C-alpha cells in the first residue's frame, strides 16, 4: 500500500541547534561538579579572591589534608564505610530471600505483602526519626552503630526487595528444572545455575542500596553522637574556627562523592544490559 516513496528520516539528527543545546545542557549538569573538584584542588589564595579563575593555575592537596586532619574525620569515614557496606550486604541477603519467595511461589498474603512494600515507601523518614530516637533512647541504644545499620536496612529494604523481585522473576525457571531433572537438588540447581545469572542484578541492587546508605543524613544526625557520626553529617556540620573554609568544604564534598560517582558509573553499565528495575510484566 505504501508507495515507492523512499522513507525520509523524520528527525534531523545531529542538527547544529541540537548539538549546541546538548553542550549547554552538559555544562549545566557538569559545571557544579567540576567546580566542586576544581575548588578542592585550588590553592587557598585562588579561592578567597575576587579574581575568580575558571581553571586552576596551580593545584594543591592542602584542602584534602585539612579535611583529613579535622577532628574525627577518620572515625566518620570508618563509620560510613562500615554502615554502608553492612547495610548493603544484609539488605541484599534479606531482600533476596523475600524476592525469591515473591517471584517464585504462590501463597496467601503475597499480594498483601507487595502492597505493603509499596505503601511503606511513602512514609517520610523524617517523621519516623522521632519515634526511633525516643525508643532507642529509652532502650539506651543511641549511638550504637549496629542499630543504625538496622534502621538503614529498614529504609533501603522495600526498594531492594522490589528491584530484586523483578530480577528474579525475569530468570527462566526452566533452567533450574532442567538441572533438577538431571539429578541436581533444588538447592544445587539454584546455586549453580540461577545464582550466577542473578549476579548482575544483585550487583546493581547492592550498589543502589550502598548509595542510599552512604548518602543518608537525618538518621545518622539524630541517632548518633556528635563525635561518632557518618561522613555526610561530618560534611553537613563542617565548621572551622576561621570562618568558612570553602576549600576544605569542597575537598570534603569531593571525598563524599567519589565512591558514589564511581559506583554509579559502574552500575549504569549494568543497568543498560537487560534488566527490569521493577515489576516485570507477566
Amino acid at each position, binding site marked *: 500500500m505504501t508507495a515507492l516513496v523512499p522513507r525520509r528520516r523524520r528527525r534531523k539528527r545531529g542538527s547544529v541547534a541540537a548539538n549546541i543545546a546538548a553542550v549547554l545542557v552538559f555544562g549545566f549538569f557538569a559545571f557544579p561538579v567540576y567546580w566542586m573538584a576544581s575548588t578542592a584542588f585550588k590553592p587557598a589564595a585562588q579561592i578567597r579572591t575576587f579574581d575568580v579563575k575558571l581553571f586552576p593555575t596551580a593545584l594543591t592537596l592542602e584542602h584534602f589534608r585539612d579535611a583529613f586532619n579535622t577532628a574525627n574525620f577518620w572515625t566518620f569515614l570508618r563509620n560510613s564505610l562500615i554502615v554502608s557496606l553492612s547495610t548493603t550486604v544484609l539488605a541484599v541477603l534479606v531482600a533476596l530471600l523475600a524476592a525469591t519467595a515473591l517471584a517464585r511461589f504462590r501463597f496467601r498474603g503475597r499480594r498483601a505483602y507487595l502492597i505493603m512494600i509499596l505503601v511503606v515507601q511513602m512514609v517520610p523518614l523524617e517523621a519516623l526519626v522521632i519515634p526511633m530516637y525516643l525508643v532507642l533512647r529509652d532502650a539506651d541504644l543511641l549511638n550504637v552503630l549496629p542499630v543504625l545499620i538496622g534502621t538503614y536496612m529498614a529504609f533501603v529494604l522495600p526498594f531492594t526487595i522490589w528491584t530484586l523481585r523483578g530480577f528474579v522473576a525475569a530468570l527462566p525457571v526452566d533452567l533450574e528444572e532442567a538441572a533438577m531433572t538431571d539429578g541436581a537438588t533444588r538447592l544445587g540447581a539454584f546455586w549453580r545455575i540461577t545464582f550466577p545469572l542473578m549476579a548482575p542484578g544483585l550487583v546493581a541492587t547492592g550498589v543502589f542500596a550502598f548509595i542510599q546508605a552512604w548518602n543518608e543524613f537525618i538518621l545518622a544526625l539524630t541517632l548518633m553522637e556528635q563525635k561518632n557520626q557518618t561522613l555526610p553529617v561530618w560534611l553537613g556540620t563542617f565548621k572551622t574556627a576561621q570562618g568558612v573554609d570553602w576549600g576544605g568544604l569542597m575537598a570534603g564534598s569531593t571525598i563524599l562523592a567519589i565512591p558514589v560517582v564511581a559506583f554509579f558509573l559502574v552500575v549504569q553499565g549494568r543497568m543498560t544490559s537487560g534488566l527490569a528495575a521493577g515489576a516485570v*510484566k507477566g
Partner: protein
Amino acid sequence: MDVLDAGRPDVDTALAPTPVGAPAGAPTGPARRPRRRAGGLLPYWLLLPSLVVLVGLLAYPLFSLVTTSFRQLDLRQLIRRQTVWVGTANYRTILRDHEFWVITFRTIAFALVCVAATLLAGTLVALLMRRLERGMRLLVSIGMLLAWATPTVSAATVFKWLFDEQYGVVNWLVTKLTPVDWSAHSWFDSKWPAFFVLGLCVVWQAIPFVALTLYAGLTSIPDDIYEAATIDGAGAWRQFWTVTRPLLKPIFLILISLSLIWDLKVFSQLYVITRGGPSRSTLLLNLYTYNLGFGVSRFGVAAAAGVIMVVITFLATAFYVRTMLRVQEEAL
C-alpha cells in the same frame, strides 16, 4: 544510554518505586507469566527476615509516632521518663499555630514548583536526546549522571559555594558578563533568592531521573507512528501533543507522583543551605518537625507534626498508589 525496546512504553518499569538514584528502563521480562509453585511454608520462612525488619523498624515506629503524638513529651517528661496522655492537645497546638499553616503551604508550594520545573526540564532534555547523535547523547547522559550521582549533602554544599556572596562564581560571572554589579550580592539574606538556590539544587539533581525515564519511554515509541503523522501533515508540536503525550501519559503521571513524594521530603539540602533561615523564612515542614523535637525537645508536639506530615504525604501520593495498584493488578 541505550534502552531496551519493549514495543510500547512500559508503565510497569517506570512504576517501580524508586528512590533517588535508580533509573528505569524498559523491561525485558519473558512474555509469559513466571510459573509459580505453591510452596507450602517455605515462602513464609523466606519472607520472615524482611518482615521482622520492616515491621520492627518501620511499622512499629509509625505506630509509636501516632501514640507519642497523644502524649506530652517535653524535656521534663523525657528526663523523668513519664508518660503523660494529653489527648489531642498537641494537634490543637499545632493546628492553631499560624506559623504551621504558613510552613505547610510553603512546603507544598515549594514542592509543586520543583516538580513542575523538573518535569518541564526533564521533558525538554528527553526530547533533545532523541534528536542527538549517539556521541552527543552520551555527553548529555554523562553530565546528568554526574549531577544525579552527587550526594545531596555534597550538592547542597557546592550550591552554597556557587552562590556565595563574596567569592561565588555565579556572582562573578554575572558581574563580568552583564552590566549588573553583583560583586557582593547576597543570595541568602532573604527568602526568595534562598529558595531559588535551594530549588535549583533540588531540581538539578532531580532532572536526570525524569529525563532518562522519559527518554526510555520515548524510544519505545516506534518511528512508524511519527512517520505516519508526518505524512498526514502533522508538525512537530502537533505530533508531540497527539502522539507522544497520550502514549507517555502513564509515565508522566508516575513521574509527577514520585517527584512530589521526593520534593515534599527535602531535608538535607535545606539543613545545609539555609537551615530554615533567614529568620525561619525558608523553614519547611520536615525541618520544622525536626526542630520541634531535636531543637526544643517538645517531642509530643513534634510527633503530632510528624503524623500530619505523613498524612499530607499520603494524600499527595494517593494517586500514585492507586495507579500502581490498578496497573499492577495482574502482575501481582
